[in-house]
């Protein structure tokens, strides 16, 4: 199995480490590739778009011609997990909490609307134990860093993680067939359950 991590910027090596650990735990002979060029997108079984600055990642992806091909591949059915900035890139609608409309280039392949910096700035970043549908009953330590939130979803998308934030229900994880969007960072814990879920339930169908 070959899984790519979009490698322009952000928490790339953290995902590489978590994927390697998951392969080891599952006893799968897998390979992790850092993707920065269009030709590296061929022969992948899945791809992770890591956290970082979504403007930077999308500008670089467009400049290196990765963006268009990646969009095609995802539409054709390449399983994808978007984390934080990755979730923003997957979304069809994006607004920013402070400045409103943004003009950044996006993939726009998933039926979700995302608000950037939903919870505020770095000062308001937090961590919280949450329970995710489709995983198991054990709580997952979710780390939210200048995180976005999924404010709307439609079509085949279903929310799989909802948190209670200051009394309101906020969707922080959603799945649409083989596309997974998370607004928190599973790679900042040693818990590989989400990466294993991506490998076992979303890639190996």
């Amino acid at each position: 199995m070959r899984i790519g991590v979009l490698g322009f910027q952000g928490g790339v090596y953290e995902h590489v480490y978590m994927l390697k650990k998951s392969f080891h735990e599952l006893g799968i002979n897998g390979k992790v590739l850092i993707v920065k060029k269009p030709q590296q997108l061929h022969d992948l079984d899945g791809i992770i778009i890591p956290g970082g600055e979504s403007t930077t990642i999308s500008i670089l992806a467009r400049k290196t011609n990765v963006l268009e091909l990646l969009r095609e591949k995802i539409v054709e059915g390449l399983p994808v997990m978007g984390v934080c900035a990755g979730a923003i890139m997957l979304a069809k609608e994006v607004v920013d909490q402070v400045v409103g409309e943004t003009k950044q280039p996006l993939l726009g392949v998933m039926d979700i609307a995302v608000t950037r910096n939903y919870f505020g700035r770095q000062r308001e970043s937090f961590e919280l134990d949450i329970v995710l549908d489709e995983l198991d009953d054990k709580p997952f330590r979710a780390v939210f860093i200048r995180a976005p939130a999924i404010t709307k979803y439609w079509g085949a998308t279903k929310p799989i993680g909802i948190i209670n934030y200051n009394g309101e229900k906020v969707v922080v994880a959603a799945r649409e067939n083989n596309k997974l969007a998370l607004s928190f960072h599973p790679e900042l814990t040693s818990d590989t359950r989400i990466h294993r879920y991506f490998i076992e339930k979303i890639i190996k169908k």
Partner: protein
Amino acid sequence: MFQQYMLLNTSARLYDVGFDTIVNFFYKLAETYDKLREDGLFFIYGPEKLPDRITIPKQGTLRVKYGFPVFQKGGVCMDVTNVEQAGIAEDAGAVSVMVLDKLPYDVRRSGGVARMASVRVIEEVMNSITIPVMAKVRIGHYMEAKILEALGVDMIDESEVLTPVDEKHHINKWLFTVPFINGARDLGEALRRITEGAALIRTKGEAGTGNVAEAVRHMKLIMGDILRLRNTLPEERIRVAREYGIPYELLDLTVRLGRLPVVNFAAGGIATPADAALMMWLGADGVFVGSGIFKSSDPRERAEAIVLATSMWDDPETVLEAQRMISEQKSMMGIDIRQLKPEELLQVRGT
């Protein structure tokens, strides 16, 4: 030979333990500070205290503090002095901006006391862009740092570019929930800053000169010392830790990882895409560019080119393409470091 060097470097930027292990280590380091304080051995400045026994409050946890710089990796943080420059930086693909009153080049020219930027300018920048906003405080200036924390900047740089207010001590950064950046010239200095709670280290270089030589020297010193210590016995590491004035465990973790346990950026004199790619080649996780962009006559193209070269540093063809986007005639005029008087050097402030 070169290939081998590169391999060493690329593997050096990979944590061979999970981020979790690193964070747990920092919790232990913070707890030590907490215990020392309870024993009355550690003097606390400022009105706020550490969270009660590190029981993981919701906001401002160590994981959140040390996690934030991880998402800056592979990117470029640009020095800006106003909203317009911040806009250029965001459009070019910067991962964050650093708000300053004057660019280091102008600090050098104007002399006098350099302080933190106007609160009004920082606020305007925060309200106009979506990427993180950082700001600099003087070394040892707790109140400037508290003000910026209250304002809500994403990261604070305790910087030698501004005039230091404490000749002997740096800020105790464990007292803050906002993550800190500190400069370093060698491994000892970097690890001392980490012991004080810095979440991101940058090489000091010689800011505002347009000459990357000092940044190269500092990065090679840090990476070289780590590689050298890999082949030493524990008793030698204990001696080195004592010499540096840091806990042995921190040195040991650094040597085991083969890199600094926090994110490490390059700074000081980066002026072209090639400079930025060179620093990445030497093992930096990302770069800070100050005067290099807004003191050149093609800031828009140069900012874009440096972002491209930093991310794609391991692909010479793309770096070439980035280098083509700029013209050497438009680069900032450099200052030869050898022509600076010893008292004009910024890098020697705060060790």
